[in-house]
């Protein structure tokens, strides 16, 4: 099951990448990133069967950080939305230069 788990992890990660590249809605983009994180979690868990509990410990940390990141990121999106009335990433280009 290890190889299949890792393959699944890679596929999900790839789908997450495609999503990041394709979507313009900031919130959906965020969710694609979450998908990528989940794929990596799966990798960790699958390998922890082989290498011990450290993998699962790391998954705990990943989830924690993902939660923190989601909170802060969504707060930022809300703040931007208040200014521009849009979450379309193509419109948020003040850093152009």
């Amino acid at each position, binding site marked *: 099951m290890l190889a299949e788990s890792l393959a699944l992890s890679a596929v999900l990660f790839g789908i997450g990448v495609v999503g990041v590249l394709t979507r313009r809605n900031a919130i959906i983009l965020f969710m694609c990133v979450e998908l990528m994180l989940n794929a990596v979690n799966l990798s960790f868990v699958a390998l922890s069967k082989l290498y011990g509990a450290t993998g699962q410990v790391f998954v705990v940390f990943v989830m924690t950080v993902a939660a923190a990141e989601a909170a802060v990121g969504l707060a930022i999106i809300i703040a931007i939305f208040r200014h521009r009335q849009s979450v379309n*990433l*193509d419109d948020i280009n003040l850093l*152009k*230069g």
Partner: protein
Amino acid sequence: MHTELPATGHPLGDTVARLAWLIPLLPLLGFVINGALALRAAAVPGPADPSAAGHTGHGTDAHAHGHDASHDAHHAARHPAARLVSLVGPGVLLAAFGLAAATFVAMRSAGEAMHAPYVLTLFSWLPTGTLSLDAALQLDQLSMVMVLIITGIGTLIHLFSVGYMQDDPGYPRYFAYLNLFVFFMLILVMGASYPMMFIGWEGVGLCSYLLIGFWFTEEANANAGKKAFIVNRIGDFGFLIAMFLLFSNLGVLDYAGVTAGAAELQMGGALVTAVCLFLFLGATGKSAQIPLYVWLPDAMAGPTPVSALIHAATMVTAGVYMIARSASLFSLAPFAQLTVAVVGALTAVFAATIGLKQWDIKKVLAYSTVSQLGYMFVGVGVGAYTAGVFHLMTHAFFKALLFLGSGSVIYAMHHAYHATHAHADAQDMRNMGGLRAYMPITSTLMWIATLAIAGIPPFSGFFSKDEILASVFARTQHSTLAEASWLGVPGSVVLYGVYALGLAAALMTAVYMTRMMLYTFHGPNRTGTAEQAHLHEAPWIMTGPLIVLGALSLFGGLFNLPTLVGGSMSEGLHHWLEPVVGAGTLQVTHGEPAHLAHATEYVLIGVAVLIAVTGIVLAWTRLKPAELVPADQAPVERGIQRVLLNKWFVDETYDRTIVQPTLGLSRTLLWKGIDAGLIDGVLVNGSALLARGLGWVGAQFQTGRVGTYAWVLVLGAVAVLAAFSFR
């Protein structure tokens, strides 16, 4: 600084010769002092030296050829430091001459023991591995002769200059440059290796430039200075190539080493011929032979004593000295020797033809110098090194006398025009005439010099010129030259041709010199009645050196009388120089001293004297000074007269074929193409544009949009993984 004595203890080791390093150093000291005085006084306002303030030209000399303009009304003011300079300038020269004389005496007393040169190593100059050069001075018989000539005649000319340049605002600068020149010239002749000679070589070129362009506010004078320097440089290129060849093949560059190494070289081989030809190229530049003589007539733009010292007595003789010094090399290369002799003979004739038709008194003397230098090269070219050096010596005497005498004449003419506020050319012979009545001493002395240069016995020039021609004639048989061939022509035929050209040049020499004297000192005076009241003899400070030179021109032949007439006193210079050039001389004549049968010698002497007398008589009877008109009313010349007056249009030809194409090439290719186009455009502006372009490309990535950044990030990650996958 330390002196090194050879292990065997040179006989000169514990004599005054140990102090020989002072001989060049004294003039250098004079340069420093005079230079400091020149700079100091330049800061003081007042009648300014042209080099100090930016004052424009005098305005009197609208002539295309700049010349002596020192006695212009606007600048007749004595320099404040003039007295000190008058003491220091000639003083250091006199001291150097005294020391040189003392060294000469020591060398004479050493006598037979003096068979090797005395080398005084001062310091290690370039200790770079295989090439280790020392700053060393070499005292031997040849350098002693040159040192005595330089310091002796130099002193006389310095004294003359005290009078001649007394009203010039650039007085200290003049003596500073003159002293510096003497320093470099002494380094040239006293150096113990080719690089030391080259330092002196370049230094005298520099001083020549500085002194020719002394009154540089006139553009013509500055151009003359530049021309001298640039043409010299072409010759220096040849000198350098010769040194490179010598070093790469013999591994040494000092005279002792080269002489020793020359023994290994093959007679007539390609290497030694190449070295000698390149050395001769250098000599043609410095000693004004074909094709690099064109600077010397223009050099007359400098003060007349400069012309006397540099362009008659010393600098232009450097080439002759160089060939005499390289006797061991030249004697191994008959082809090079014949080339030297042929070029010398052609130059002698060519310059003499031009001298026949010049109106400027200094130009006549300039072409005469070029012609006489040709004789010297003929002498050293055929391996008669002593004869060449002897003519060098006597020529120094009478040519310096001629130049200084003409300086006195120009001085008088200037003062006359100055007094009457006329603006005619003080150097044009058409404005002179009958000056014998006003300047008898100068006239007599210049006649002595004229007879000497024409080759009338018993004046010095006769002996030296005759010895050269006799040497040429003697080597038509039984010599390496006669057996060699020059561009397909047998050597003996070439030598007969050289001899014939020598006679032709002698005839023309007599003619143009007599012409000069006739137009200047005899016949009716064309200067103008108003000026006549102001024509007079030059002050004694100027005439005194002339008298000394006159005596030398008269009795100078005693230095090297031919055995025919001299008896026990004969061949003095020959015996003196034997340790240095004797071996080289004998090598040309297969080991036996060249000698002619007495009858042949008498015939040759007779022919030479006959030609000289014919020339004088021809000029005296055929030329009519009374028919001359002053320069501004003179008719335009036609035909061959015009060609000779315009110096065979050589300068114009050089300009059209060499100078303009080089300028054009420089302008289009080097300036516009490479400098403006390539370096400025491509390299400088181009790199700026490249940086801007790269920056623009980089800026395109900064869209400020997260989407773009995500793309780049992912693509980058894919690329990195790809690199790992394909490893």
